[in-house]
């Protein structure tokens, strides 16, 4: 009986790890989708109303978003006016944000670069820069979506097999 319980625990543990890995990938896709949406929003607002970044951070922070905490922190950091450029504040806040942990290093690099390029140039260059980064993120998103279902199956299969193998070994 105890052996069976042990087997079940090992099996479920491995399966849990597999589902956690799937969840991480799903979260990454969700975040990339949201970032793409946010960049589109920034492009629209900068082009149409010419709002300042502070105002935009405030609006983004008040919406229902996965990254809401990041936007709120950005807004308060900008309001503090405590030295540092926008890019530095952006990178620091992004590094401290928990949600960013779901992204891959290359995704994060793109996000850091977005911050470095925001607010420093004229409107048309600003819009063009955002467009470039939006395209890069879109490519990453498409690749992530493409491999998601494939990796999902692999993760479940690996989880089940490993669970079974380890369970049998302990029996």
């Amino acid at each position, binding site marked *: 009986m105890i052996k069976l319980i042990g087997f079940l625990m090992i099996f479920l543990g491995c399966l849990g790890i597999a589902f956690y890995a799937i969840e991480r990938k799903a979260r990454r896709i969700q975040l990339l989708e949201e970032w793409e949406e946010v960049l589109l929003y920034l492009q629209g607002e900068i082009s149409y109303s*010419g709002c300042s970044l502070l105002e935009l951070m405030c609006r983004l922070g008040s919406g229902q978003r996965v990254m809401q905490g990041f936007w709120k922190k950005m807004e308060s950091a*900008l309001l503090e*006016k405590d030295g540092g450029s926008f890019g530095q504040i952006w990178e620091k806040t992004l590094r401290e944000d928990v949600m960013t942990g779901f992204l891959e290093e290359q995704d994060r690099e793109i996000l850091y670069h977005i911050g470095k390029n925001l607010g*420093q140039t004229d409107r048309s260059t600003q819009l063009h820069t955002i467009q470039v980064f939006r395209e890069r993120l879109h490519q990453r998103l498409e690749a992530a979506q493409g491999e998601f279902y494939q990796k999902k199956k692999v993760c479940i299969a690996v989880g089940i097999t490993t669970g079974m193998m380890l369970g049998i070994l302990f029996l």
Partner: protein
Amino acid sequence: MQKIQKKERRMKEKQVYGVLAVGLRKLFQKTNCCFEMLQEIRLRVGEPVLVKYAGQEYFFGRTGEFCKELSKAYLFTKEELSETLNYISNYSMYAFEEQIKKGYITLPGGHRVGLAGRVLWENQAVKNIRHISFLNIRIAHEVTGCADCILPYIHDGKRLYHTLLISPPCCGKTTLLRDIIRQCSDGFGRTAGMNVGVVDERSEIGASYAGKPQNHVGCRTDLLDGCPKSEGMMMLVRAMSPQVIAVDEIGSREDVEAIEYVMNCGVSVLATVHGSSVEELKCKPVLGEMLQKRMFQRYVVLSAERIGQIESVFDERGSLLAGHKMCIAAKAAG
């Protein structure tokens, strides 16, 4: 009342000092100067920080005091300028592109930062200012009530006469115009308030920030910020049904044509123009024609000798209604 004034002053201090680089800001916050007397802060890269305080120019000292000795002055660096520009523009230079082209950025509270640097010139117009190296922070101090003594001459109790304020530059005509607008809008004495439309082409009347006037322009005032005068006047007549339209610094033929149209619509016009006398205006090509047509019913001439002093008020025939040296800036001078 005192508490409210104190709170307002603190807010103003925060608005002005808040845009300064951290090091300089801390020194200014330490200074025990009377903020109401502070008029300008001039920042130039590699040069000492200068302040205009109670009409006098001082160096801003390294320990936060106002001094006359250059050796004690605080030197402003390139990094501090970059930091200051970040704060002034809320980290978004693109958002102030149109204002930068005109050479200034308006801050919350109506304070204005003048900019100078390398100008990019394209298609006969300023495209942008790059390498900004000079800043002039001009602190806004409103003079409420400065129009009190001329209102009886330009208002008959029911409507405002078509009025032209004539003044040399920097003699208080925009301040006077703003106070007339505010009083007409809110109402004064037993006179009811009126709907006032303001075309604020250079953001000097309302000093709008994000579309909201930072100066008191009255509760019945609609303001078009950054809009060319002639187009703005037409827009206001068609859309906002004002009883009074106010514009600053008229001069072009389009302005005069728009004013004529507005007057024919039964709307009172309140305008300002650069000049030192009615006679001088008569010699100017476009404005001279306007005066000959007797479009305006009242001319208020401000003195060049003292800021805010009204020299005389004339009617449309040129008869003197009120004379000499009415002091309208008692509060400011006091």
